[in-house]
């Protein structure tokens, strides 16, 4: 009776961890990195100018303006964060034209009005508002409104340059080069756009203001949704295929305990997904590699345990005693082997960034979960069957008859 109760408890334990993993996975889901779900990752580096050094204020200013620009583009799920002394990382979800978005985000965007000699007459701070619009011929334009100070200034300029050309520049790019035909006060239009989208992106740059210093995109990575989808579909097929073949091999080699190992492996899969979901870890393509390695280690832990039990059986011990000693002796091996891997994973996660870090974190989580599985799940699953013929069979654990 006591044995029966213990067994029910063990079964309950296993069911409980599967269930909680499933719930974690169900409620949080797995965060996919941009290489799997599509998206963009841009690293911008601020460039000091003669007038301006890079300091905290400058970086905060840049971050604010970039956040505003991103919002104006109407994107959700965007992160803008600082890295190191002079860098800003922007991550965008998958969009149709990521490179154009990057271009808008990283532009210094100083709007200037220049005469035909290229002298700057007025710059963009005096712009109060700017938006994409259509002119009387229904062509896309950017219409802008000036501040009261800007109105006075522009009035003076247009008076002075009546009948001459005034170029409107965004950074060094000439947007339009109209001839002044009347004195202009508060409002103006910039023409010369082919599409409403291009007018829209310039309007954003003009309205949200210039960055205090120029920034350069030193890294830009974007994966279209198509490619992300292909990668994830292929990874799932490959992962499942691998797991199934490994399961068949284990069953073929270890017989009934092999089936248990395959079950443990499936439980491990659940636990791992649940843990990754619970920790809100981001899964990337190299992260999948870390997972594969940890699956390998989870299988390995089972192999080590089974081989140990087999050794004990050979030396003539009863099944119960063999399982006890086998586990005990396998523990130190598994701990030493996994701790060294964990050390590597933690150091990598601490000292590196980006891809390598993602890999290291998933590997670390995977190894911890695989140790937990080997010590608690494998043990309980095997205990469930100790008194059955299935485990007492001489072929179990791959023992040959007569051994």
């Amino acid at each position, binding site marked *: 009776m006591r044995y029966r109760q213990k067994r029910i408890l063990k079964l309950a334990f296993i069911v409980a961890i599967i269930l909680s993993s499933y719930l974690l996975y169900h409620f949080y889901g797995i965060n996919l990195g941009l*290489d799997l779900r599509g998206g*963009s990752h841009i690293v911008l580096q601020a460039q000091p100018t003669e007038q301006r050094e890079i300091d905290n204020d400058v970086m905060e200013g840049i971050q604010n303006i970039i956040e505003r620009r991103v919002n104006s583009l109407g994107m959700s799920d965007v992160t803008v964060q600082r890295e190191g002394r002079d860098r800003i990382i922007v991550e965008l979800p998958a969009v149709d*034209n*990521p*490179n*154009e978005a*990057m271009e808008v985000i990283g532009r210094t965007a100083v709007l200037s009005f220049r005469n035909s000699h290229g002298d700057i007459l007025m710059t963009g701070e005096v712009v109060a508002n700017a938006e994409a619009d259509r002119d009387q011929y229904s062509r896309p334009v950017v219409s802008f409104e000036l501040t009261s100070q800007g109105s006075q200034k522009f009035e003076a300029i247009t008076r002075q340059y009546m009948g001459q050309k005034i170029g409107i520049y965004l950074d060094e790019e000439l947007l339009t080069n109209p001839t002044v035909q009347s004195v202009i006060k508060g409002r103006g239009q910039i023409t010369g756009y082919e599409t409403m989208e291009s007018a829209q992106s310039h309007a954003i740059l003009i309205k949200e203001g210039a960055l205090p210093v120029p920034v350069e*995109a*030193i*890294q*830009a*990575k*974007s*994966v*279209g949704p198509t*490619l992300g989808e*292909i*990668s994830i579909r292929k*990874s799932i097929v*490959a*992962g499942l*295929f*691998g797991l199934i*073949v*490994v399961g068949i*091999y284990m069953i073929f*080699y270890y017989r009934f305990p092999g089936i248990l190992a395959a079950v443990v492996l499936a439980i491990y899969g659940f636990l791992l997904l649940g843990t990754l979901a619970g920790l809100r870890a981001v899964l990337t*393509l*190299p992260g999948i*590699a*870390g997972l*594969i*390695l940890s*699956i*390998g280690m989870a299988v*390995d832990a089972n*192999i*080590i345990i089974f*081989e140990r039990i087999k*050794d004990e059986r050979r030396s003539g011990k009863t099944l119960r005693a063999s399982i006890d000693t086998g586990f005990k*002796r396998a523990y130190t*091996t598994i701990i030493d*082997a996994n*701790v*060294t*891997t964990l*050390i*590597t*994973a933690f*150091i*990598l996660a*601490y*000292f*590196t*960034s*980006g*891809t*390598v870090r993602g*890999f*290291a974190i998933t590997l670390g989580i995977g190894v911890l979960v695989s140790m937990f599985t080997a010590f608690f799940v494998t043990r309980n699953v095997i205990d469930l069957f100790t008194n059955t013929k299935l485990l007492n069979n001489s072929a179990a654990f791959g023992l040959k008859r007569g051994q």
Partner: protein
Amino acid sequence: MDILGKRKIWYTISLVVIIIGLLFMVFKGLNFGIDFQGGTLLEFKFDNKVTNEEVRNILAELDFAKDAVVQQSEEGGIQGVLIRTKELSPEQIVEIEDALTAEYPSTETLRTDMIWPTIGQELRVKALWALVMASIAIIIYISIRFEFRFAIVAIITLLHDVLITLGLFAILGREINTPFVAALLTIIGYSINDTIVIFDRIRENMKLMQRTPFIELANKAVVDTLPRSINTSITTLITILAIYFFGGASIKTFMLALFIGMFAGTYSSIFIASPLLVTWKNKFAS
């Protein structure tokens, strides 16, 4: 089975492979990808077949993309091209996209990867630092749990696996990129794991069989753990092969590196690590 007695044979096999690899590394060099050297990689897809030559002609019109290398897209089944060139600004990338779209309206950007050489440099330095730190930590841990010589041998074994993988990549001319670095790290993790399992058995035998000469008890440990070593590497290699054949193109290089490294790792933990312990013992005993 006498594995440790024939250690000179195993050393020779490894040395030959490593030396050939090193020669290729020195004379042919490693094919560093844009992650390390900086540059731009663009992959486009079209509804209909577009030849590399047609794309080259379009790029020739753009000043900054004249020298771009155009290849067939890596992702099978997709009508696409892969363009490699020096690092470009987002504006320039948009110019390329616009030029292609003007000619082929179905142009879709599969991926963009642009990186400055400075970032590649940082990546190299960081990864190397992390490896040095990890090695030191592993030496300390193994020295405490085992002995100092086990730690040094474990590190030599790691180096062996890394050199063989690098060497084969030099021979094959395959690209070294960030996923490759992740693969190397995986190999290190696997190799150390594999070696420790055997060392653990040697440590146990040293306690249980104190009268037995070291070479015999070490050999027994290697032979006794052989089923585990083989089973573990077979199951791992199956998974890797599955991903190699079913996984996407971007993951192929990565899996190839893993395959080579895991193979080297299994070999070295059986044929290099424990024999080196014996060699060490003999050298310092005499």
